[in-house]
């Protein structure tokens, strides 16, 4: 996987191409694809949907709606229900996308 960065150098994008870009979500190897960025090392998180809950152990099985599934720590974003969308970073949910953050916008 590591050698690919220089081989696949996408040409500079024009304005038209910028937003047309849709990256395919792929399996776990994409997490450390040099072209995509290692989502764990970077400050990157991805939205995943809760499929099953193991409340006793504080874990959830989450998926991205395709073939990717992973076990996620949910202790920081409780309460969590099946079907919720969580923002997951390094196997830990750090955000709860289906729940509103109360009155956060624009404060200083």
């Amino acid at each position, binding site marked *: 996987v590591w050698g690919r960065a220089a081989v696949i*150098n996408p040409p*500079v994008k024009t304005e038209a191409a*910028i937003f047309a870009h849709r990256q395919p*979500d792929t399996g776990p190897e994409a*997490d*450390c694809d040099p072209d995509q960025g290692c989502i764990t*090392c970077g400050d990157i998180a991805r*939205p995943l949907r809760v499929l099953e809950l193991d409340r006793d152990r504080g874990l959830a099985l989450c998926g*991205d709606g395709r073939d990717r599934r992973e076990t996620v720590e949910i202790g920081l974003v409780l309460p969590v229900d099946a079907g919720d*969308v969580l923002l997951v970073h390094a196997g830990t949910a750090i955000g709860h996308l289906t729940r509103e953050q109360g009155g956060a916008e624009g404060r200083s």
Partner: protein
Amino acid sequence: LRFVDEFRDPELGRALAGQIHALVEPGRAYKVMEVCGGHTHSIYKYGIDDLLPDNVELVHGPGCPVCVIPMGRVDDGIAIARNEEVIFTCFGDMMRVPGSELSFGDAKAEGADIRMVYSPLDALRIAKSNPDRTVVFFAIGFETTAPSTALTLKRAKAEGIENFLCVCNHVTIVPPLRALLESPDLRLDGFIGPGHVSTVVGAKPFEFIPADYGKPLVTSGFEPLDILQSIRMILAQLDEGRCEVENQYSRVVPYDGNPAALEVLAEVFELRPHFEWRGLGFISQSALKLSEAYADFDAERRFETPGVRVADPKACQCGEVLKGVIKPWECKVFGTACTPEHAIGTCMVSPEGACAAYYNYGRFASEREVV
């Protein structure tokens, strides 16, 4: 996928770019720093800088945890990994980060049992299935990743797992920002604040930036529309003469942070008196180590490490790049001696590093500018 596609809408993007052009005073130069490496990556991936007016310049900040690891810490990690009984685990990007002689990838090729993991929980799983070996996890990351390590250590302690250890290299975002702002060679007009760090610590810790240094900061998400909107919010503050912390990423960032995460961080970690940052030097209270309650899990206490400070290679200008003083392509070795496969500096190793982002997405454009 919901929560992703909405933030890549081309029509809205063009509208935002138009608003940004309308806010900019001709003849005035704007310098905005994106603190987080994830933003740098998004900016080049989606070509956001191409949409901005010529006098709005984005400067890349120090927010890539891999890029700021000094070589001495890699050497320490390799010394631990060479112990026969150790299974050494780390995140993907760390594998290629050069130490003074070897990277983890090189050490693995020489026979050390070094494995790439996606999360600390995976490392703990390896420890459970290899009870006769010692599993060491090389933890890196800002406050985004630190709770993940903390929860895993809590789990290990609760389950009584004794063959799991951690080399803690977690760093905090506020001290290096303050160090940057104190640096005399830096002129900035505003900050795009780190999004996922703020899901943990909130936007509140950044209030010192407008209060003490008079620069606006907008906590931003990572999709192209998030970043465009944040730039518009910063320019609007400058236009209206306001200077405050605003939260563009309010769909996941609570202004005061995540109390559960802050609690677990306080339980498992304590601040190091000082820590060396690549290119930025020693910064006091800028990194975390395991607290006394978790001392049994501290690999640095269990194993002998060289602990030697290694100077950065002379040719490498990662320090200036991290401070935003020079652009990646102004570095002498950029794209020649230093490429993603054979990186000299860490900014080229990690895809979130400014140099790698330029190399992968923007180097043809910058070549045009240079010529």
